[in-house]
């Protein structure tokens, strides 16, 4: 089931109308929802950003879906990173200030897993973006062109069912 969902997100993102940059930005941003524990204020803010900024929403969901298992698997690493940062004497002043200003504590930055996973995401966001952009561009240049020439594909895109679906969802094959 998870695999089907992943496949569906993958096809949806790769073939959406967005540019490779938009899809890649979506994937990079979506990764934060999978990597960091979901129920935190920063995720609410970033989710708002994902809606407001013109980046690929299927890309966001693809990034989210791909990052969820990774997040669970890497929790011990996030915990270690977060604990090291929260215990660093040099950063104690920063954490103390943040802990005592309004709203910020609702991000739960003072939890080792939340902070560790968020920091790891911040470090990875640009590599994810560039890798995803390159991957989408390559897919569209080589794989999609080859797929489009297949008879089955042409028959499918010519069908009335596809037109109806495309008009409803904005999704294309």
């Amino acid at each position, binding site marked *: 089931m998870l695999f089907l969902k992943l496949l569906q997100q993958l096809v949806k993102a790769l073939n959406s109308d967005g540019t490779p940059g938009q899809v890649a930005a979506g994937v990079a941003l979506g990764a934060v929802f999978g990597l960091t524990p979901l129920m935190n204020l920063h995720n609410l803010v970033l989710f708002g950003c994902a809606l407001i900024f013109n980046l690929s929403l299927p890309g966001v969901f693809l990034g989210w879906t791909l990052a969820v298992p990774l997040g669970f698997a890497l*929790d011990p690493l996030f915990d270690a990173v977060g604990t090291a940062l929260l*215990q660093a004497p040099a950063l104690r002043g920063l954490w103390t200030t943040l802990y005592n*200003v309004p709203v910020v504590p609702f991000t739960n930055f003072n939890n080792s897993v939340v902070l560790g996973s968020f920091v790891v995401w911040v470090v990875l966001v640009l590599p994810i973006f560039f890798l995803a952009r390159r991957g989408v561009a390559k897919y569209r240049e080589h794989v999609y062109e080859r797929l489009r020439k297949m008879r089955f594909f042409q028959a499918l895109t010519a069908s009335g069912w596809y037109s109806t679906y495309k008009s409803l969802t904005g999704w294309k094959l």
Partner: protein
Amino acid sequence: MKIFRWKAVIPLGLFVLLVVLFWTLYVDRLIRLGIEAGGTAAVGAKVDLRSARLHLFQGSLVLRGLAVTNPREPMTNLFEVDELNFDLSVRALLEKKFVAETVAVRGLRFNTARTTSGALPPKKAATAPGGGPSVASGVDDWSHKVKLPTIDLGGLGKAVNVARVSPDSLHTIVLARGLAARGDSLQGSLGRRVAAADPRPVVDSARALVARLGNANLRTLGIAGARDAANAIRTTLTAVKGARDRLTSLQHDATAQVDSLRQQVAALDRARADDYAYARRMVQIPSLDPKDIAAALFGPAALQRLVPTLLWTRLADRHLATGTAPQQKAGPKRARMAGTTFAFPKLHRWPTFLVEFAEGSFDLGGRTTMAGAYLGRLTGATTEPAVYGKPLTFLARRSGAVAGPESIAVAGSLDHTGAVPRDSVTADLAGVRLPAVDLGIGNARMDLRTGTVDVALARNGDAVRGRWLVRSDSVGWIRSGDTAAAAAAPLGSSAWLDGLVWRAVSSMRNVEVEASISGSLASPSVDVSSNVGGQVANALRQAISAEVSRVEGQVKARVDSLLAQQVGAARGKLAALDTGPLKSLTDDQGQLNDVEAQLQQKLRGLTGGLPGIRLP
């Protein structure tokens, strides 16, 4: 390409609206569940809350129907509150902190019955927050470990089996063996050091020089010869002084070590007294010490009253952080790893939880001493006292009594603002109706009637000192059960003891019972005293002193015979040190002093005995 997706504003607005709607509908429920879960984790038993209502913009929170189970009695609530009205700081809420400027408490009642058990499932109850053993079970363990003496006269009038006193159980033997071994080792090491510091070569060389110089003087040696002789004497004197300094240092060291051993050997007599007491217990000779008898009579009742005080002190310790250093606790439970949540308190800011001022009325139910209506006041209740900077204080005064006059006052202070926590609680109850106490022997029940109760507890760091004192001058005595059997009962039998205790106490009108705890907070010692104990001890002494002396003599003889060899060996080792290395050191010092005097005399002879003349 457009940067913003304006058409998403409406869905986003709808999403925000949904969040607000969820908040409005569920925040009260979330608060209720949070208080129940947090309270349950803190107390170690169920905490129930009927409803919670938050008015965010008015900064008020109203809790209704709060019931906190007594972890030691799951069918009883520690307290129950009809309504708690918090006046909250909204700005503090934005910092995820709970700061109540004032709290009005209505309908607080203690020790109310529960309809369902408030005990936690065994798995949850086994550990307290933080993974350590629960505070209640820790205090229970301590109370079970407190050894209270009993009055057992079963051994009287019978042949005493002194063979039950085993040499392996006597502490003195272990100590004496250790001391003998230490004496051996000390003798060996000192012997080696004394041999290494042997001054004989220096002494012999000095004596040879003295002999060589004979009656020589400036006239017989000439100036050059006298100068050489004086130089030789000075060199030898330096060697003599060096040897003497080494011996003095060694002597100081050796004397210190031998003195330490001497003190330990002297302590064997105290250990022997402990072993006598142990042996007395082994052969069941009753103690006639009034304190032991008071502890046997009132110990369980006193312990029952001391345990809650200790429990609350330890609970406060667990939940009140000291200092302003970052604190750590386990993260929230979730599908993902919980991690660790850190708190970063800051001086002169709000602590995570604070009730600045609370006032209310409460009732204590029933018809006991404490029953009645009270007015209570509390200030500075916080989880981070160092951040808040003021101690927690509380005061409760009776405003209307069910029984007895209105003179009950309880006051206290928990000062955890510094590195060393200081707590104090006092309670004074005067002219109150006191409960009856079963003595446990003599089928006697002591009705204290009207009297006074003073409770005081002071804690400073890890040290605790507390007292529970009950006084009454109108005591009545009630005897139940068979009273006729006592007269004909054999010496030492239970019926005989019952009769004796009854005769000793039944005419007493003034009674004073004092229980005190002192020592470390983790494991304080308990002391119980009472004039009832003295009275019973006197009666027992008159009745059975001859028998007790006879048996005690046998037990002491048995202990002495078991200890004789080991203690003798330890004392022998000490004597050997005195006559061995220490004497040797003193003799060597004497020889060095002797040759030094001779050398000085020779030196004076060379200079004609005139002070101030120094040969070139």
